[in-house]
């Protein structure tokens, strides 16, 4: 059966569009979650939307599993291949089809890189707001599949809040168009349902995005605190005051030192915690809010506060934060980054508990997070060359996520469930909730071929 499939596939795709040699497949065996590896049987690189539809229809006919892949930056193993199936790489669907600056809309193919959208919009005084730290590499299609967030989603939301329309191919090969160009719609919000469905509902081909006017002014502050607790309290005070910053980020000492060694952003390396707060918007409003912000920070116990005086200084502050995950590679051969969410007033307590868990396991954790929305990123650092360390790190990572749920939070704020957290779904959802979700996937993907094995506990879905 599979040989018939490959025969047909080879007739449809030739040359560098179809990869089958092991050496060609290895780059696709893993994504950002490097602890998981699986070799697909083949990789197909379509160059047109119609080719994607053809492949999916072929896969459906032969019941061959497929995994769509953008740039493979997923931190939850969302594009881990299925060893019985193929990977469909979308990077060549990289055209920005249209950009309507007057109506603030861009229509892009799913392989377009996130930052390229903002770059294309920039000459018109516009930008695409969702800014995951991988934005220079990750694709819009991947952002849609996982409802990507980023540091600036506190004020304007995640990917889902910026997608107006999606043209997608369903697992059975049917093409659908959801939503449109308007901010408003009629009928159930199926665009909203598709975003974040982790590839289980098919493959997005073309996406209509909304663009925002570039903020006129920014006020970016970097404050150093002797402890994480004080930094967390400062965030709570800022939120309680009614200010709505564009971003609020915290990094712990371990992270700050790694960042300085790697990026040299000028962070104070003796700080227990560093807080970045960024106000953005209309000049006069930002200036007024900045006065309020300074008052709050000055009374919050920060011992070193500086504000960016120009765009260069602002970029440097962000360079450190956005380079944090990469910088951790300097201080540890491997790490697992987690993504749990806690209610904001639990931040201090959650971090204290992470610290004691870290000591209990004897494994270091470097904390970086979107303090404004309670989205933690504990990076569990370990040496993967040491026997048993991967398992220990995974166990600690899971413990941290369970702790988040116990505190009324969520298992994932923006990285998605993928492979990595599927065993934790039952901590957050009841058996019944999971059954309901499976009803939907079974209806949309009766053959179980679209990114199957992801998102649900292993005993509920066909394995990879």
């Amino acid at each position: 059966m599979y040989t018939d499939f490959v025969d047909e596939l080879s007739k449809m795709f030739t040359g560098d569009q179809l990869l089958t040699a092991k050496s060609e497949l290895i780059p696709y065996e893993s994504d950002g979650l490097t602890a998981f590896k699986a070799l697909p049987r083949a990789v197909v690189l379509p160059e047109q939307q119609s080719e994607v539809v053809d492949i999916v229809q072929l896969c459906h006919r032969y019941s061959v599993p497929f995994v769509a892949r953008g740039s493979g930056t997923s931190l939850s193993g969302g594009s881990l291949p299925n060893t019985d199936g193929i990977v469909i790489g979308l990077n060549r669907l990289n055209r920005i089809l249209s950009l309507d600056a007057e109506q603030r809309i861009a229509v892009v193919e799913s392989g377009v890189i996130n930052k390229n959208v903002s770059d294309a919009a920039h000459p018109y005084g516009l930008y695409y707001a969702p800014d995951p730290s991988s934005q220079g590499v990750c694709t819009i299609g991947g952002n849609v599949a996982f409802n990507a967030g980023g540091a600036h989603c506190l004020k304007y939301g995640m990917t889902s809040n910026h997608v107006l329309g999606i043209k997608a191919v369903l697992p059975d090969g049917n093409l659908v168009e959801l939503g449109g160009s308007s901010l408003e719609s009629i009928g159930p919000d199926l665009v909203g349902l598709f975003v974040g469905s982790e590839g289980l509902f098919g493959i997005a081909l073309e996406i209509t995005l909304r663009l925002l006017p570039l903020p006129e002014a920014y006020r970016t502050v970097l404050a150093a605190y002797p402890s994480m607790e004080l930094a967390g309290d400062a965030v709570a005070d800022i939120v309680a005051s009614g200010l709505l910053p564009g971003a609020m980020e915290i990094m712990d000492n371990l992270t700050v030192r790694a960042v300085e060694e790697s990026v040299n952003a000028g962070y104070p390396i003796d700080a227990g915690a560093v807080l970045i707060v960024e106000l953005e918007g209309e000049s006069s409003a930002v200036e007024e809010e900045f006065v309020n912000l300074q008052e709050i920070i000055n009374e919050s116990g920060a011992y070193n506060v500086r504000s960016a005086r120009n765009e260069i200084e602002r970029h440097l502050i962000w360079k450190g934060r956005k380079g944090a995950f990469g910088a951790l590679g300097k201080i540890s051969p491997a790490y697992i980054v987690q993504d749990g969410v806690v209610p904001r007033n639990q931040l201090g307590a959650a971090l204290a508990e992470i610290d004691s868990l870290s000591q209990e396991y004897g494994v270091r954790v470097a904390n970086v997070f979107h303090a404004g929305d309670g989205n933690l990123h504990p990076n569990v650092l370990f040496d993967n060359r040491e026997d048993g360390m991967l398992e220990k790190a995974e166990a600690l990572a899971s413990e941290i996520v369970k702790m988040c749920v116990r505190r009324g939070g969520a298992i994932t704020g923006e990285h998605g469930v993928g492979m990595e957290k599927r065993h934790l779904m039952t901590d957050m959802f009841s058996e019944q909730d999971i059954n309901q979700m499976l009803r939907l996937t079974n209806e949309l993907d009766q053959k179980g071929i679209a990114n199957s094995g992801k998102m649900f506990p292993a005993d509920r879905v066909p394995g990879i």
Partner: protein
Amino acid sequence: MLEPKSVKEVQEVVNTASTAMLIRGGGTKTALSTPYGNETVVDLSNLSGILEYRPEEFIFTALSGTPLENITEMLDENGQWLPFDPPMAKIGATIGGTLATGLSGPGRYRFGGARDFILGVKWVSGDGEIVSGGAQVVKNVAGFDFPKLMIGSLGRFGIISEITLKVFPKMNSFGTVEWDCGGIDSAITFVKEMTCTPIDLFALDLESNGIVRARLGGLSTTLNDRLARLSEYREGAKIILGEIEANLWDHLKEFLWLPDDYSLIKVPITPDLIPQLDACLADRQSHRKYSVGGNIAWIGWSGKIQDIDTLLSELNLGGLLIIGDSKTPWLGTASVMTVFADKVKRAFDAEERFLPL
């Protein structure tokens, strides 16, 4: 008519109703809450109450039949609000009905609409079971986005029982600048220009006669300067403040401009398509208001529903009947029944206990 008082009773109703169920909250959107045939009306007025409110987290959870006014009052006491101006609050709209119809008011322009504020949902599906999705934190991507699915779903997948929403700190001062652009074409050109400025407009509405209104909200200390700056964008600016300003926007939120016996239709649209729509409606007896930077057209229609249905189809636009008489509320090219929608329907209401899409 059935009036369940608890979620358990809702489940019983779903299991025992003998005809397709039509769900009603406050009954304010009459086209969507009035039976056309022998539907079983399920009235959720008694499924009301705040289950949890955490002002420091900017989150609340309420039963779906809770009136918007009760919610607004509660949030107001803590200097918080739902910024998207949920409409028809004064005549008794409920939070469940607002989300099930997917209606947002002029404030949707600034921070987003109902879909951007919903965090969690529980609903009773066709088999009487509870489906839940989302979480009680502002950021979560675990599981499928069932909360968003419920927005605009008009009870086709089940009965919403409980909703969690995020709220924002309430703006304490407002002001509006109004211009007369002379006609709809100039008004559209001006609206498009205003949409791309870095001015943080709270609302941006226009009318057929060329009137454009831009609303600002924020700190009282900077409001006058910002209004002055906004006024410079075009000659003839008129600044409106105080109670008159508040009433102006209430008038729009509550559809007080809609004459009695007129139907009300919501048409999602983009600015470019407005002049043509307006021209087609101009010599018919109709009222039009264009909101959210030209992304919604509200049409007050005095004629037959079939006629507006045909007109919208000819213009390749879709509409939702909010007030009026029609068996199906989807008008024009509103393509609600797609392959995708059909599969979702079959997942949650295989036996069609609820109305069809």
